[in-house]
């Protein structure tokens, strides 16, 4: 498995290939489609992330010292965004995630190019992941 820095660099490189936002959406939609659905029983109120127009669920658990994330959404582009976050951060140690600045999201233009409601959703997703890391870090 690549390191967190390598993975983030690979995502940034992927996004540099896209000419316009339609291509970025296509990419996110495909990521969304490929994401393993969260079992129905895991789509609970306490896993729901606030601040999104669509519904987003994030499940975080510790496995052998690593944080493992699973997520889902009823909207495809949001599903793609949360899938991207899961790809980058799942399987890392909580210390590693807690120390990360999530700056690559700005590099790939996700933050400013999404509508304010969606940007809020992204902010909520990131803070949920950070919170899980802080709670589990030693």
């Amino acid at each position: 498995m690549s390191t967190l820095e390598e993975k983030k660099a690979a995502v940034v490189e992927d996004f540099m290939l896209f000419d316009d936002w339609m291509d970025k959406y296509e990419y996110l939609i495909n990521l969304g489609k490929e994401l393993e659905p969260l079992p129905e029983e895991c789509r609970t109120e306490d896993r729901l992330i606030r601040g999104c127009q669509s519904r987003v669920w994030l499940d975080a658990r510790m496995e052998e010292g690593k944080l493992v994330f699973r997520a889902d959404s009823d909207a495809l582009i949001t599903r793609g965004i949360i899938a991207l976050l899961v790809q980058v951060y799942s399987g890392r140690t909580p210390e590693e995630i807690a120390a990360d600045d999530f700056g690559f999201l700005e590099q790939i233009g996700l933050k400013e190019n999404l509508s304010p409601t969606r940007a809020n959703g992204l902010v909520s997703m990131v803070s949920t992941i950070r919170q899980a890391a802080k709670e589990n870090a030693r």
Partner: protein
Amino acid sequence: MRIETIRQEFPQLAGQVYGKPLVYLDNAATSLRPRSVVAKWEEMSTRYNANLHRAVHRMAQIATDEYESSRDALRDFIGAARREEIVFTSGATASLNLVAFCLGESMIREGDEILVAESEHHSDIIPWQQMCARKGAKLRVYPVEEDGSYDLERLESLLTDRTKILCIAQISNVLGIINPVREMAAVCHRHGCLILVDGAQGIVHLPVNVQDLDCDFYLFSGHKMYAAPGTGVLYGRLELLEQFPPYMGGGEMIATVRWEGSTFAAPPQRFEAGTQNISGVPTWKPAIETLRLLRDPQIEDEQARIRDFMLDALGSDPRIRLFGTAEPRAARIPLFSFAVEGAHHEDLALILDKFGVAVRSGQMCAEPLMDRFGVTGMLRVSFAPYNTLQEAEYAMEALRKAIKMLTE
């Protein structure tokens, strides 16, 4: 009048997003602003800025004249019997809160009933819920039919001798169907019940005469009908407004102020506490002029063509479920809310945005209506008289591409 001539009055229509021409189809949320309104706002802010009613100097005189002549223009525009029946507020929401509060204080007793239509905007639900909680009154729902229409016989059956008021939009911001509020008013009044009509969408698309509609309250926002944001109107029958206590206390709404107690001005001043929107209110006049210009046969024909094109296009795709399908077509405005099977409203809106098409997605401030139709949200495309058939065609093409991206 040619639509191109009108479009030039709205500078934002010439704008671009992501290098594509802006196609603004979120007019039910807020309209674009014409040059004349912006010019009036600027004139009031840069040449005649002064507070109203209070001072004797020339600037205050001009500002007061502009403000009070806007009241006259509005009285004339909606056919109110008297200028005292026009109360300035900050918008439809403020108007609704004012009526709910003051009616509650003056006329509602424990056990009374308030009837609210199922498709109402949250602004016409929450103030009534709050008032009912305070007064021990009961909020009841006037159910909408499957096709988005309202049944008059059902209304008749819902009214009891405790029902004090029916609250309904002339046109729902989700369904776009023109409700028969004149007939509803007749039913309500036969039962000794008042009727409040939310005209936020209606005033933009229909000629309104409040005496002809025979409604007790009619209210709307300036920003949806080309005037400055932060302007609103409450029309209320004078004999009702006279029974209302003040809503907010402050300057200008008083008759006398003593430490032992104060007395209050007559309507409408009783409800206009504090410094009013001195730059915004005068923009009602150019806004009304714009509305009158837009009520032009050539422009109305284009609106009908847009309506027919959209209904045919949305109806021909089996994946699209339109909400508010009641006939006839002439009894609706070019506003369409729908859901697409297999494609989330938020995804569709995001992709349409990148095509330069501005639409609304989500619950449209009508969560109970979303529940009624069993959806988490809808996509809403709402046209204004400055929109063209060409824009409608472009938006549908973009919608088809978005659906394809999401479902294939």
